[in-house]
């Protein structure tokens, strides 16, 4: 995730202090990974240097945490461009799991067992997310759904590979 663009976007609704920005970020997007203060201030310094934000005011007491930041026109343009640019889909071509399965077949180990164990581990995570989703608000539900759909895709691959293990064994040991 681009922290810089996200903080810029949060500034569009009005100027904020670094602390407010961190709180808004954590509340909406941080979930399991809250921002460190250091990340906020280093990001704001960079945005300031690049002219995407400006200091709107400094409260008495000094220190960087007292600065209030406002987004500039260049900053608004930058956020708009970022939102309009599609994210590059992950190609998912470097799969550790695939490597493990092939190595297991090459060394005559239990490849089906590797797939079963992985399925169980994926399901364990899916249970945690399903439970969190059940207890959470809409934002939580959507975040968990995103993760659940990805895990589900992995599981479908596991099933498909399990069904093709004999053919794969032939292919890799030929």
């Amino acid at each position, binding site marked *: 995730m681009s922290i810089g663009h996200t903080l810029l976007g949060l500034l569009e609704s009005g100027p904020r202090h670094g602390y407010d920005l961190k709180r808004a970020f954590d509340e909406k997007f941080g979930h399991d990974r809250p921002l460190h203060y250091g990340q906020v201030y280093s990001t704001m310094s960079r945005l300031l240097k690049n002219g995407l934000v400006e200091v709107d005011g400094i409260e008495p007491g000094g220190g960087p945490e007292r600065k209030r930041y406002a987004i500039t026109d260049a900053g608004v343009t930058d956020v708009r461009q970022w939102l309009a640019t599609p994210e590059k889909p992950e190609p998912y071509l470097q799969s550790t799991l695939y490597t493990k399965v092939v190595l297991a077949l090459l060394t005559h180990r239990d490849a*089906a*067992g590797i797939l079963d164990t992985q399925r*169980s581990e994926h*399901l364990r995570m899916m*249970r945690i997310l*399903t439970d969190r989703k059940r207890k959470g608000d809409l934002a939580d539900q959507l975040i968990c759904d995103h993760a659940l759909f990805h895990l589900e895709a992995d599981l*479908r691959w596991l099933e498909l590979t*399990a069904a093709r293990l004999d053919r794969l064994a032939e292919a890799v040991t030929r």
Partner: protein
Amino acid sequence: MTAETMAPAGSLLAAHDLRKAYGPTTALDGASFSIHPGEVVAVMGPSGSGKSTLLHCLAGIVPPDSGSITYNGRELATMNDSQRSALRRSEFGFVFQFGQLVPELTCVENVALPLRLNGTGRKEAERAALTWMERLEVDDLKGKRPGEVSGGQGQRVAVARALVTNPRVLFADEPTGALDSLNGERVMELLTEAARSTNAAVVLVTHEARVAAYSDREIVVRDGKSRDMERIV
């Protein structure tokens, strides 16, 4: 060793080394299974792996060729047909992929049907049926016939019908297979909540990981053989 001693301690329903063939086709080839009260166990595996046959054997619908099944300490094979039917009517509940509601009856009559078949009077049966329909959030459909409700609603009615006798084991065979994601999830939430609140065990046959994620653990059936993942990991 007797069948009873092979059942894991505290299990409500257990099967050991089940084998079943339909002509030349082997459906089960040494499958085992156990479930405790209040537990939700997903039976997973690809199409044709034998998971539905396992469910049918566990529920006493189909007899295995060999192997043992014990329910609450009793060997199913020692029961006659009428005893097994009575067991299915009073102790087991069933939900299938398509609700299989009786089209001529209203939804509340459908839900009340298992109680009526057990001899409960109409008023009392429908009162109990309505309580379950409220829990499944379909009480407003009581006067409608199955053809007048959506797939998701019909499936919730089917879940209410399966639970109305307070079964100790609920068998669910691809219960969300015919539903979209949102409806499927709601059915699974309500089904597992309702089952847990009554300490019913749920045998959940599914090939969908998102549905299996509502379970406490899973067993995998492949080529008629079962693999209990809890004991492996």
